[in-house]
């Protein structure tokens, strides 16, 4: 059931993840992020690193679209 992932596909996914992370890190408004309360700050930083909006929203204690608005204020792009 847990399919073996072909090496080529795995490499493609790694490259996509690395590019996405690099873009999020470079475009994020770090001064805005650092000024946020601890839980929100942690969630935004998690989003920059992982790009998983649903888990980031849960970490922040917000709904998905509330977190999406916050993401935009923090200038963190969705990369997909």
């Amino acid at each position: 059931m847990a399919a073996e992932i072909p090496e080529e596909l795995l490499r493609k996914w790694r490259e996509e993840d690395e590019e996405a992370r690099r873009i999020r890190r470079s475009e994020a408004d770090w001064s805005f992020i650092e000024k946020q309360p601890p839980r929100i700050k942690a969630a935004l930083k998690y989003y920059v690193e992982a790009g998983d909006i649903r888990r980031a929203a849960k970490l922040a204690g917000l709904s998905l679209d509330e977190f999406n608005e916050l993401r935009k204020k923090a200038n963190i792009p969705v990369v997909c």
Partner: protein
Amino acid sequence: MQAVVDTCFLIDWAGYRRRELLKSVFNRLLVPRQVLDEVRSERTAELVGQWLSEGFLYLAPVTRRVEEIAEAIARYAILNSRIPAVEEPEVYGLALAKAYSMPLLTENRGAVRLTQLYPELRDIRVMRALEVLALAIERRAIEAASREDVEKAFAEYIADTKHRFPRKDLKDTVDRLCRVLFGS
């Protein structure tokens, strides 16, 4: 053409200045209940309410067949640690798309990767905003007379939603559109 839509796509698309454009690409969008449960912000709720009342958005019933497909997809997602998180809304979105042979509009990497990995799911056509915008340009729902116009169409979406398309995907898409539209 009809399509299934998930939360991540809807939330992003709701912030786009030409959000009504979706109606020139699709006749109707099916949405699983799990997606509606996640809509909270005023802007997205307003859009969803409007589209539901117009019949453009349709709350899809979950049949036994859809449940069976959803269960299999959830199992795939859980068992493979390389697949980014896929939760109920995407699982049901994929299941509806599979059951009714419709594209799935999503920005969820987990959903995209499940269809790249599992042969049983490869027939699901996953469309991100990139592919939806490309289709709109190709069908002339967005006027484009030059490469600059094509690039501008994507740039508008990027500006409105703070969304970035992977560089290679965007370049390949713009190149393809220019070949199709202008023969160059």
